[in-house]
């Protein structure tokens, strides 16, 4: 073979591609983290960049915020348990049982994620505030005293966070359950185990990577959750790490070093979670997709299917129907009260919302960024999942820890690291949509990774090895074997990434430029500076735009698949 022929036949090997993609991603994550760690060690003028002096004072001084860390762990822990239980139960009902209307319910189950925690928190504040909450007003109207519920408590915040993150857990766990060979459950039942026993002893252990992945992700998401804690916590003087950080960096002079130290401290919590996750999945086999063919089938649960249907509908009512109705109602009010009156009705909130640049251009920017982040993200994160769990390359495991960094620190603080990092970067992307795209791809790495890796762990390596024995190159194997099997996980990841990008708040607040505005910060800002009625109108417009965009994309995709089939 001549050197020319050798050059023509050269294909990048898995090691080289892995090195480039893994290395590139590492830079994407570590570059801003380095600035964040630098800030956390700054003990001079808090505004000085680079720091005037270094020390550990910011970490040693964190003990005065111990109650805030306690609040955060309490809310995140309770919300994670509720969200994962909801996600698992809903996932099991809709993928493993013959509950009526499964297909439609499955689509609806992702709705709370579209609704967003911000809109959910605003709605639940109107429903359950001790003073003006609709439920409590009605309670007093029928002779009750005081209040029936109070959403402005730790439990209330956890409830709202769990409702809206429960659907993330559902999407993640549901994708894993769909890929499970039903013969294992059938074997259990043939051997005399009941439905519940089969669910707990067979289904749950087999989907453990997905459940744990969802738990790790959701817990981290809860640690960094901002909107619900902001809307529902401030009225009761209840701060969590993110709302405390927001106050620290919004004050003059901004206390970045303290906020950065708080954020960096959360790395320890996150790494402990990833370590536990890896320990558990490395101690057993969770393969359910092997070379043996299977057809996804569901269990006949008999009369139990009606109560299970009721459970699904109840979840949809409290997580979607009720909040959306309340927000629609509030958006047409001058001053929202529990008792409707004609004099209070107005269209002014929509007129104002549609006149704002923040709604017109920012909504469009958000949708563009959502599609770009989801499409590029699925490719990047799918490859990284394969790299970590399949490539057997040295150091692949370390990449997983690396990729969890952005999840470990609240996005608001991570955004400061990104701002400092990309401000001095020689390519002028600061203040453009490109920076937001990079930011979203970086902060959503854990989301994509967790969603896809839950499925990848279920695929037997022998399928790829078989293709290798037949002479397929690694790229061909990836394209024709691994990717098609990963399809449920990839679709779920695309959907989650799209929605997560459109509703992103923490990183966007600081990284938006005058010509690269996105919608969610404008909605929060409206809540600060105008009224909950205008905010309701803006949140509803955002939700409608996202729903319309998704409907169009699904229709186009369906048509493309049909055309391909013909």
């Amino acid at each position, binding site marked *: 073979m001549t050197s020319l022929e050798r050059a023509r036949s050269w294909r990048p090997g898995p090691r080289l591609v892995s090195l480039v993609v893994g290395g590139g991603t590492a830079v994407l994550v570590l570059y801003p983290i380095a600035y964040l760690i630098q800030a956390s060690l700054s003990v001079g003028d808090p505004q000085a960049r680079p720091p005037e002096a270094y020390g550990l004072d910011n970490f040693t001084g964190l003990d005065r915020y111990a109650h*805030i860390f306690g609040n955060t762990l309490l809310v995140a822990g309770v919300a994670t348990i509720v969200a994962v239980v909801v996600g698992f139960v809903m996932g099991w009902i809709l993928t493993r049982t013959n509950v009526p209307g499964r297909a439609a319910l499955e689509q609806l189950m992702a709705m709370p994620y579209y609704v967003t925690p911000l809109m959910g928190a605003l709605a639940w504040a109107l429903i359950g505030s001790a003073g003006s909450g609709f439920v409590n007003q009605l309670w007093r109207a029928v002779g009750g005293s005081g209040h029936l519920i109070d959403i402005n408590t730790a439990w209330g915040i956890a409830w709202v966070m769990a409702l809206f993150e429960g659907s993330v857990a559902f999407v993640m766990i549901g994708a894993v359950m769909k890929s499970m060979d039903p013969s294992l459950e059938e074997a259990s039942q043939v051997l005399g185990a009941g439905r519940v026993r089969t669910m707990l002893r067979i289904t749950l252990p087999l989907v453990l990577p997905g459940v744990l992945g969802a738990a790790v992700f959701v817990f981290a998401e809860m640690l960094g959750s901002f909107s619900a804690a902001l809307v529902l916590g401030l009225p009761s003087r209840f701060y969590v790490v993110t709302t405390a950080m927001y106050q620290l960096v919004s004050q003059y002079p901004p206390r970045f070093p303290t906020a950065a130290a708080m954020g960096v401290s959360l790395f320890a919590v996150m790494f402990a979670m990833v370590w536990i996750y890896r320990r558990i999945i490395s101690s057993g086999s969770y393969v359910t997709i092997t070379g043996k063919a299977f057809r996804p089938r569901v269990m006949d649960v008999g009369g139990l299917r009606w109560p299970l249907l009721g459970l699904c509908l109840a979840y949809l009512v409290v997580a979607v129907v009720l909040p959306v109705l309340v927000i629609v109602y509030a958006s047409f009010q001058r001053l929202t009260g529990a008792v409707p009156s004609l004099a209070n009705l107005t269209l002014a909130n929509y007129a*104002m919302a549609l006149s704002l640049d923040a709604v017109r251009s920012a909504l469009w920017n958000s949708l563009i960024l959502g599609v770009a982040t989801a499409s590029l993200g699925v490719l990047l994160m799918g490859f990284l999942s394969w790299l970590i769990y399949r490539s057997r390359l040295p150091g692949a495991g370390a990449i997983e820890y690396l990729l969890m960094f952005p999840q470990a620190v609240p996005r608001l603080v991570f955004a400061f690291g990104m701002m400092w990092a990309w401000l001095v970067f020689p390519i002028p992307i600061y203040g453009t949509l490109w920076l937001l795209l990079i930011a979203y791809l970086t902060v959503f790495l854990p989301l994509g990774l967790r969603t896809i890796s839950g499925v990848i762990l279920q695929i037997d390596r022998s399928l790829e090895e078989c293709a290798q024995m037949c002479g397929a190159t690694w790229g061909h194997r990836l394209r024709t074997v691994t990717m098609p099997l990963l399809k449920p996980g990839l679709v779920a990841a695309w959907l989650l990434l799209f929605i997560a990008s459109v509703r992103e708040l923490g990183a966007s607040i600081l990284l938006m430029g005058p010509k690269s505005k996105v919608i969610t910060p404008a909605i929060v800002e409206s809540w600060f500076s105008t009224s909950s009625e205008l905010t309701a109108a803006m949140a509803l417009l955002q939700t409608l735009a996202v729903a319309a965009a998704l409907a169009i994309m699904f229709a186009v995709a369906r048509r493309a698949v049909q055309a391909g089939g013909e």
Partner: protein
Amino acid sequence: MTEHRHTAVTRRGFLRTSALAAATAPWLARAPFAAAQGKSTKVLDFQTGADVAKAEQEGEVVYYGHDGEAGIGVLLDAFKKDFPKIKTSYVRLQTGALYAKITAERSAGRFGVDVLQLSDISPAIDFQKKGGWEVHVSPESSAYKAEHQSSPAGHYNWGGVTFAGISYNKGKIKPEQAPKTWKDILNPIHKDGVSAKLATSGMQHAQWYTLRKLYGNDFWQEFAKQRPKGFDARAQLFDRLSKGDDRMCVLAEYAGYTLFAEKGAEIEFVAPPDGLPATAFYIGVVNKAPHPEAAKLFVDWALSKRGQAVYQNQKILLYGSLRTDAGPMPTGKRLADFKLLFPTDWNDYVASHPVFVKEWNSIMGL
């Protein structure tokens, strides 16, 4: 924009302005004189030190501000209406975060901002120390007292004033329990029903400072016993007050009160006889601005009667104008109708900021 007319400032005008400034404040050496800047141009009905043709050629002004989206939108739309050849864009953040953003950008050598507006004088003075403001003595600044400008003049101007009293929900507080003086906010019957702003607010700093001067250092420690709830913006305070979630708001900005009272909220505004803490917003041209002439034009417009009419008459903004020739606010009242409490020693005021932040964070449970 239809009319451009160059007006040379006369020696007599210069002397007259000087005499006026000397009479009103001991800031003579720092007083603003449009004449000192040479030519000014009459455009529409105001004077500008900008080259209007160049400003229109630059075609854009980038504004960083602290007001809400709706407020900034109203302001920039009004400017665009007067100067349709100049596009506007903006970034909106709370003053602390906004200032952090602009200083980080500048320390990295990125200069993308033309006009900066802050709600707190401390960062405005800090920005001046860092050489962040472009020295531009607006011809319109002759309509302002010297004490309402930076020292020396030309760095930034006081663009308008907001002030706060007490407001309460009429359905939640009986007339006999209604507050009348500042000391009434300490009444234990209001415990757990009181709201104020967080330490992010320049207005809150002004109130903390001025009432501390009036009633002593223990006043706010007594107030802490009420377990007040803190929020970022006046709209949140009045939203909650109107709905009855809070009984009383102790940092009730007049602008917020009028907006919600107009919606039909059952709330009352109280102006305690000792006075109403007040603060301004501070606006100026940023050094190394990418569109320097457009920036000067914008600031001159903002300080002119035209711009001040937007700040003062648009209810989403409702900043009282400090122009000596300003008309009444939409409520029919003028700033002079209120007894406003401004800090008298600005150095002491700025120096007190860290003490305020620490004490206020503690009061708010942070």
